[in-house]
């Protein structure tokens, strides 16, 4: 199933142009966006099941993540002063447009909910804002996978069936990790389960994705992308393990949470680097396309 190594190119130069997005801006945004979205859901569930500490921590995480995310995105723009142009149109064919229309209301709602929860003012409106943020939360965590996949970048585009699940699981792990770090053990049971489940799901989906990709998945296994994802895998596995065994230790839980956060962050960096590498080397564009054209 391994395609022929022989291919022709123009002096070995890339066919595509890789993303011009800045790092750490965009990988960080993916991470905090997923974290914020997941946290918004956790916050509502925490409120519903009367876990106030968890609710507060998650609201702060949702709002903070949203704000950090917005800052990162605006900073990444070539013309940051024109960031509002993102809201000139609403285009379903543009995940970035759709995403802007998710992020904008989500940020507002998450910040409103967090402010209300922290200061105690306008609790009803605050709660409504929180519900709104939670409704948008899962979209926050998954649209970014579509953002990456909806390009010509071989390692991203070909990965589109699994990538949303990888990002969702990673967001779940991150959202759960916040609780493990910031919340007393008596309230963090559910998020332990969420974190462990999310982490495990991330490990599985990531493997499934790489396997299916085959040749085009090479950048997830080799080079800088491979190294980052390898580290992410280790940290996430440690977090899953930790989640299972630190049920009685606050410190252990915090360490577990930290490992999961780091793993979630490195996953995004790894995916970003793998994409760049797959755009840079012409073989990932030429070989599969040439194979498609060659009759068997």
């Amino acid at each position, binding site marked *: 199933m391994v395609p022929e190594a022989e291919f022709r190119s123009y002096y070995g130069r890339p066919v595509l142009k890789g993303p011009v997005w800045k790092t750490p801006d965009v990988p960080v945004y993916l991470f905090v966006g997923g974290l914020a979205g997941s946290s918004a859901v956790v916050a509502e569930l925490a409120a519903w099941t009367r876990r106030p500490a968890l609710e507060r921590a998650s609201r702060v995480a949702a709002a903070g993540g949203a704000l950090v995310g917005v800052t990162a995105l605006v900073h990444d723009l*070539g013309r940051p002063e024109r960031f509002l142009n993102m809201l000139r149109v609403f285009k379903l064919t543009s995940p970035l447009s759709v995403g802007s229309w998710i992020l904008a209301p989500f940020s507002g709602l998450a910040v409103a909910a967090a402010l209300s929860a922290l200061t105690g003012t306008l609790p009803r409106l605050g709660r409504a804002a929180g519900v709104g943020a939670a409704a948008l939360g899962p979209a926050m965590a998954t649209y970014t996978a579509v953002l990456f996949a909806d390009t010509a970048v071989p390692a991203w585009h070909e990965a589109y069936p699994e990538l949303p699940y990888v990002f969702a699981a990673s967001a779940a792990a991150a959202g759960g990790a916040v609780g493990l770090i910031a919340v007393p053990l008596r309230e963090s049971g559910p998020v332990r389960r969420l974190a462990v489940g999310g982490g495990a799901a991330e490990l599985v989906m990531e493997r499934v994705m790489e396997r299916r990709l085959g040749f085009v998945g090479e950048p997830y296994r080799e080079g800088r992308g491979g190294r980052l994802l390898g580290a992410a895998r280790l940290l996430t596995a440690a977090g899953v393990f930790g989640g299972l065994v630190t049920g009685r230790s606050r410190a252990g839980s915090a360490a577990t949470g930290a490992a999961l956060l780091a793993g979630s962050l490195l996953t995004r960096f790894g995916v970003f680097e793998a994409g760049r590498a797959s755009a840079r080397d012409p073989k990932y564009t030429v070989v599969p396309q040439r194979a498609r054209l060659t009759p068997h």
Partner: protein
Amino acid sequence: MSPSRNALSGPLPDVAADAGYAAPPERVGFFTDTSVCIGCKACEVACKEWNLVPEDGLQLTGMSYDNSVALGADTWRHVAFIEQSSPVDGDLRWLMSSDVCKHCTHAACLDVCPTGSLIRTEFGTVVVQEDICNGCGYCVPACPYGVIDQRPGDGRVFKCTLCYDRLGAGMEPACAKACPTESIQFGPLEELRERAAERVQVLHEGGVEQARLYGHDPDDGVGGDGAFFLLLDEPEVYGLPPDPVVTTRDLPDMWRRAAGAALALALGATVSFLGRRP
């Protein structure tokens, strides 16, 4: 309002009407016949002169006579040079080809642009409205041909406009006007496609079996290009993708997957909260 499969990929006979123009003129584009290109680079210079594109690199590349390297924000016509010697008899061949933005029927750059800066013109071409672009850079990795790019120091993206300003005045693009051998031909796309088919036939009859068209077919992965080519070897030899596909073709499926994953996240979170404390 949700995009149907047809609108995102596949043949699209009236691209300007599809974009909303009421009575657009005939679609125009380029047919670049590389079999008569003499590698003079008049196209590169004419384009830069007309569009005030900055110089972008004074370094010898060693890539034959190609020191422009690739299309980008500051190179909108790029002449490629490929030296080939036959291993059998040492016969030399020097391929020369002027590359340009393809102005795809289904343009991924346009599809993914979140500000509406990239638009389809009444001529069927794709242009960037530079007063709107905020340099988000999304179009850059979306392009299956690696054309559009961000200009260093400016922040916005730039690419060939098919000399939109000249078209509006009834003139042909600068590169087509400058090309001395009519390697770059400009005109109604339908007519160019007919001419190109005839030219390939003439070449085949003359023994040039390697001649083939590229980007001419409305059934290809981008719905056919507004700027298509006659090549004398496989596309990848020239740095072109063999079988480009507009990424938007798979977008509906991507949204479905994302929705599934979002649902899974919501469900997973809810399930985590079920059951007794803690």
